[in-house]
């Protein structure tokens, strides 16, 4: 008869196995991203690759916004401001860094070579700097009631845009750049002209690695206690506070997390387009992202993926109608909001839909050989 101690230890999960199981999805995510880059990309051609890139970046941006707007139920409409900050930080590192350390403006090295590692560092730097801004903006303003947060985040987005427009001109001459230290170059971000000649490091691998990792993180968040705390804040902030949830802290953490990934999204965006124009990452872009979140379904992960896909692909499909394109789009937006205000997926995930349940139930029944 085993002792009680032994029986208890047998029940405890093996720490290594647990860690492994926990990290396995991330490894799978990276592997899947690799497959996308190596196999799917070349198979579908340049045009569709670009569309896939756009969708992936939209997922990163909308997914991060969903944590604040969807889970926490806050009104953040300045997401593009964080994008812009992350884009500038990453571009500063890759463009000037490339010239300082690799003596060239072009992309360097192959897969995971020096150039791509620099790019990865740039993305992460972008995320970190964006989250710093997230703290600066979030801490004082998350005390405010919903609509006021909307105005402040809007104002923040505009301020970042204006600040971007008054930065100094970006030198393009290699010799001139090598003469100055990275720190001195930190405020030479292009001004109204914008920052251009950014090496085009964005590829399916990075975009989808970040996208899948983010999706896993927000999936786990949704079903964790921290996530439930956010959902509680959304439903009724005062009741959540009464239940012991530190609402301000929960909101700020959500805000900073979303800012981090927005910064990464901005970095990916900048290295795809090859240039940053502060006017393009302003109010309009923030609204586009909010639309993806709301149409897809706030609080739903499949909703985000669906929303991002639709809202990137649809303008392409509507291209024919040019003049009327935006009008149709606007009408569609209004109709969706009136007829299905919770968005396409609402708060449900794909695997929670009754249709899915029916199908999977049928499949498992047939597997077990008919009614038993």
């Amino acid at each position: 008869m085993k002792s009680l101690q032994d029986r208890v230890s047998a029940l405890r999960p093996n720490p290594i196995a647990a860690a492994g199981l926990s990290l396995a999805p991330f490894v799978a995510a990276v592997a899947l991203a690799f497959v996308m880059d190596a196999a799917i990309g070349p198979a579908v051609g340049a045009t569709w690759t670009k569309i896939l890139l756009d969708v992936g970046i939209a997922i990163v941006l909308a997914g991060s916004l969903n944590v604040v707007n969807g889970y926490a139920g806050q009104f953040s409409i300045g997401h593009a401001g964080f994008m812009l900050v992350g884009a500038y930080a990453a571009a500063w590192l890759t463009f000037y860094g490339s010239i300082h350390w690799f003596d060239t403006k072009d992309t360097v090295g192959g897969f995971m070579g020096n150039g791509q590692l620099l790019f990865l560092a740039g993305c992460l730097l972008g995320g970190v700097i964006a989250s710093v801004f997230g703290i600066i903006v979030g801490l004082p303003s998350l005390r405010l009631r919903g609509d006021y947060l909307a105005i402040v985040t809007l104002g923040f987005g505009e301020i970042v845009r204006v600040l971007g427009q008054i930065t100094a001109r970006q030198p393009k001459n290699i010799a001139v750049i090598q003469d100055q230290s990275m720190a001195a170059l930190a405020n030479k971000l292009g001004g109204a002209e914008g920052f251009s000649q950014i090496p085009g490091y964005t590829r399916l691998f990075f975009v989808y690695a970040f996208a899948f990792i983010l999706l896993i993180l927000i999936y786990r968040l949704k079903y964790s206690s921290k996530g439930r705390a956010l959902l509680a804040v959304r439903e009724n902030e005062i009741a959540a506070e009464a239940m012991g949830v530190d609402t301000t802290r929960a909101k700020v953490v959500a805000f900073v997390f979303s800012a981090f990934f927005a910064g990464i999204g901005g970095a990916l965006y900048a290295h795809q387009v090859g240039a940053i124009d502060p006017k393009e990452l302003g109010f309009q872009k923030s609204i586009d992202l909010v639309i993806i979140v709301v149409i897809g379904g706030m609080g739903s992960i499949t909703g985000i993926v669906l929303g991002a896909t639709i809202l990137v692909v649809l303008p392409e499909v509507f291209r024919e109608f040019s003049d009327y394109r935006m009008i149709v789009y606007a009408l569609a937006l209004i109709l969706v909001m009136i007829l299905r205000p919770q968005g396409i997926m609402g708060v449900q995930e794909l695997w929670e839909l009754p249709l899915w349940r029916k199908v999977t139930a049928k499949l498992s029944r047939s597997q077990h050989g008919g009614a038993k």
Partner: protein
Amino acid sequence: MSDLLQTTINTLAVGGLYALIALGYTLVYGILRFINFAHSDIVAWGGWLALTVASSAPVFAMPAVLLITMAICALMGVSIEFLAYRPLRKAPRLNVLITAIGVSLFLQNVGLLDKFFGNRPKGISALLANDVLVTVAGVELRLFDAMTIVLAIVLVVVLERLVYGTKMGRAMRAVSFDERTASLMGINVNVVVSLTFAIGSALAAAGGLLFAFRNDLRQTADASWVLLGLKAFVAAVVGGIGNVRGAAAGALLIAFVEVFVHRYISALFSGTQWVAQLQDVYVFAILILVLMFRPSGLLGKATVEKV
């Protein structure tokens, strides 16, 4: 001295403009707790409609053009509320916000069509010469500025009397205070809401017309209208949203910062470039300061949120 007077006149004119537009935001927010993003597009349409009416029927004198434009925009506002916002009265607020954005996009792009206003900027000053009315101490008071100031004062006073001195005004205030109880008291909430939108849109039209005379007309989809609306909205918030007098006060403050302060700061710092370039940022900075230290606005009353 004349410089000071001129700057003051400009401040008053710009303040009047912002006040007219801010009132629309504040009235709607007061009643429905909702930021009407499409409001700046009504302002744009107001300006363009004024041009269209004035140039297609030159017989009409300016006051008639104003009234017709205000009437059309009031109708537009009521229809938009009925079609797009009323079905969402009970929905989460982010959704109504999105719908408002949808309406805004719709108005912008329909306005761009050749059948409507087209996609080129237009001048309006050809219709009315900006003559000098009176010269005081070396400072000229021109027609457009005078028009703006007078009209703004008249409309704000009229509105103030409406909201604080009539039965309908009391009904509006009641609905903004507590909608359900107001309806229990026999107030038809739908009528009050429609009236609010009508008034707000009419004022927006007036603002649009005055703005057009001052700065000519840019395309309906141009970002300058959105920025104008944003600043007017900031003015409403700073003054205390939901509060008519607050909107006027806030508008004057924002105009003061944008015109007066900017004038003297940039003269002071005439060496550095970027101080003057921050004109837009000043406005948002004021917003953030007010929201942090006095969130209910300068003239607003702090309300306790009951559970």
